[in-house]
């Protein structure tokens, strides 16, 4: 990537953020590298508030599907997921981790969901056969004309728009 390129305004969907946070043990996922680029460029990251809702669902699945490392599983007693205190401690960690991620961004702009974006997302569901949450992300970025969308979700290949950039890890 050209060092002369200054990355200014990028929309991050939840798949990108989840991949940056949980994609790899080493934290060397393609999205983590993209994030480093955004930070060094001093750019602005935009995201929809629905990211938070999706993020906590991903965090829950990470625990309940045994996707974390053994040391994390043990240190948070995730084998005892049926206990409220175990769940609370895990989700609290996740909350801090998301806040830490957001505070790592040079500048972030969290955009609320509104009726107009929902209506536009329904159109995008029809046009590109997207799921509703995928469509909300795309509608938010399009509505505010944010120049780039970074996602790790291959479903966005259906979107015939050059500003959507799918960030992939090497095979």
């Amino acid at each position: 990537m050209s060092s002369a390129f200054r990355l200014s305004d990028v929309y991050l969907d939840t798949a990108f953020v989840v991949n940056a946070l949980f994609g790899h043990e080493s934290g060397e996922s393609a999205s983590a590298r993209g994030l480093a680029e955004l930070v060094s460029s001093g750019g602005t990251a935009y995201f929809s508030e629905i990211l938070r809702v999706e993020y906590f669902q991903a965090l829950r699945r990470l625990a309940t599907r045994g996707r974390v490392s053994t040391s994390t599983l043990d240190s948070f007693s995730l084998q005892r997921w049926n206990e409220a205190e175990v769940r609370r401690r895990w989700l609290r960690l996740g909350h801090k981790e998301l806040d830490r991620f957001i505070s790592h961004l040079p500048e972030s702009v969290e955009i609320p969901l509104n009726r107009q974006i929902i209506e536009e997302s329904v159109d995008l569901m029809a046009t590109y056969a997207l799921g509703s949450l995928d469509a909300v992300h795309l509608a938010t970025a399009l509505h505010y004309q944010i120049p780039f969308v970074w996602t790790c979700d291959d479903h966005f290949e259906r979107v015939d728009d050059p500003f959507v950039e799918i960030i992939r890890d090497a095979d």
Partner: protein
Amino acid sequence: MAKERVIKQLTDEQRQEILRTPGVVVRKRDPLKKGSEFVPAIHVDRPVPVRELLGRDDDFECESE
């Protein structure tokens, strides 16, 4: 991220429109914070399929009866 890109950014007017939207929250990084790498605190043993975590099922085609 290897593909060529043209330089694009929001105009000041577009940016102000976003910032004027009710409920928008803007946060800025602590200028004293150093380093561009984010080191995750939650560790996974192997790459985790993001769609699985998000529960985004691939339902591009309808299931036949």
